[in-house]
């Protein structure tokens, strides 16, 4: 009986596991393998050790994109979570307009990135954009900011739009987690003389810890692999100032001489995504153990 159940369990798992192996795991392994060769996409190849990697790290455009990707990934994850949690706490206080607000906060996540990119480009354009027109009207010519056309600001613009697009689901998950915190326990703590902040730090935060983990993972995963927004908003410009690792990989992939750089960059992106997230999971496990178990 048990053996029969296990056998059908294997049958249940087989189709999707095969698809995941063929279309996800195998290509990733291939990326790693070919990144150690001088392969150009066609014909033979020979092993050249790590020289693709030493070469790519000499390319300033690449190292800048690498740092930028880490910066965008970490900043958007932190900001989207801070905003998401803050407004989830506010919405949790049984506001009358809660359901409508929740939907409005979620909608940016539903809007296709291409649409978001075009609309934001329309809003933020340096000369004709409505935001700069408004700022000029308020503060004079000095008020105008090069949101998209300045290499210094464009990263922050992208972070802002990404947080705008990403925080809806995060907020929803926090709201659900907050509703799982029993009201009686909060009241009991208050009666014992705890302040609002104390009950938040010692009761609410530990109880919503699994939600925090999921949300930070969502933020990191999306932030580190971001492609659509910089591609459609600025095309990676000005002068490569908004190129992320994914955009770089795309560019390398379509240039016949740099294909192997693209493979090395792919491997670096995988490693970063795995290392950053595993580091965070380890950290959050430690925290969850320290607060709930201890």
């Amino acid at each position: 009986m048990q053996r029969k159940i296990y056998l059908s369990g294997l049958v249940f798992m087989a189709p999707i596991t095969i698809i995941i192996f063929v279309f996800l795991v195998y290509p990733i392994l291939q990326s790693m393998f070919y990144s150690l060769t001088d392969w150009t996409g066609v014909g033979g190849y020979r092993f050249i050790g790590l020289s693709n990697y030493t070469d790519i790290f000499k390319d300033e455009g690449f190292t800048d994109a690498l740092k930028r990707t880490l910066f965008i990934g970490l900043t958007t994850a932190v900001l989207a979570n801070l905003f998401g949690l803050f407004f989830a706490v506010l919405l949790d206080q049984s506001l009358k307009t809660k359901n409508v607000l929740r939907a409005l906060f979620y909608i940016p996540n539903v809007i296709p990135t291409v649409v978001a990119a075009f609309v934001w480009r329309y809003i933020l354009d340096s000369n004709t954009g409505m935001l700069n027109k408004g700022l000029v009207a308020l503060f004079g010519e000095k008020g105008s900011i090069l949101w998209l056309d300045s290499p210094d600001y464009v990263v922050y613009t992208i972070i802002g739009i990404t947080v705008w697009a990403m925080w809806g689901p995060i907020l929803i998950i926090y709201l659900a987690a907050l509703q799982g915190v029993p009201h009686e326990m909060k009241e009991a703590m208050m009666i014992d003389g705890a302040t609002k902040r104390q009950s938040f730090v010692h009761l609410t935060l530990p109880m919503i810890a699994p939600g925090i983990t999921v949300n930070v993972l969502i933020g990191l995963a999306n932030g580190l692999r971001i492609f659509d927004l910089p591609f459609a908003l600025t095309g990676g410009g000005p002068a490569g100032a908004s190129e992320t690792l994914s955009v770089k990989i795309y560019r390398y992939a379509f240039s016949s001489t740099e294909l192997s750089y693209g493979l090395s960059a792919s491997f670096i992106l995988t490693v970063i995504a795995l290392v950053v997230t595993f580091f965070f999971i380890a950290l959050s496990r430690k925290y969850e153990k320290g607060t709930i178990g201890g």
Partner: protein
Amino acid sequence: MRQKRHLLLELGVILLAVIVSVPLYLVLINAFKPHPEIVKHPLSFPRFEVGFDNMVNAFEKMDIVKAYGTTFAIGAVAMFIAVGLGALAAYAVSRLKHPFFSSMYWFYTACILIPIQSALIPLVLLLRDLHLQNSIFGISFIYGAMLAPFCIFMYSGFMRSIPYELEESAYLDGCSTFRTFFQIILPLILPVTASLIIVQFISVWNDLQLPLVLLNSVDHPTVSISLYKFFASRNMSDLSLLFGGIMLTLLPIMILFISFQRYFVKGLSTGAVKG
């Protein structure tokens, strides 16, 4: 005093919701204005002089019907793979008490973290070798592989909370594992299924990168790609056409979101918090 603070708070949150919704508002009003009016009064309400002309224009020029069909077909196949086959696998990893199955849970969860961008270059060649290049099936399989791990993660979290007694009695009555899954488990996971389908379908509908790399936009234009290709070359010279096109891209997905909003918000949150 307390009442007043509460009201102030509510007003603050509403203000933020208004700011966050500015882009959507711009699309909704400017889709009904002629170009000069959009330039002059971007924020004002439309006077409906042009009616639905912007959308009709965009409709005629963008070949949007083909784009809807393509995107919908890709989404449907991808959903069958990611959600359908994912649910089966989730049942095995979350309900069968053998260490092999629970270790596979960690394998799937780790797969969530793999950025598909890292596999892009080999994927192009893989599809060529499988004769799936520039086909709806090729890209759908990739979406399936990419989205399934998250579905399995969410389903497993949810399925663990289902009491075992239900299945055990089914097994004792001589039900096969398949029948148990389809008759006992499947009805229980419908809410999660609905929310997963909506969330994942939206992400397929909105994706730009995979169709950009894997599909020829003339043969198989997705909605995002046709909007991108159509306006990347035209810049912002005709805003009424741009907003008409944006409206066409946005409309189906907004209708989907609004009609299932309540449903999927609930499913999404239970799976994530328990998982």
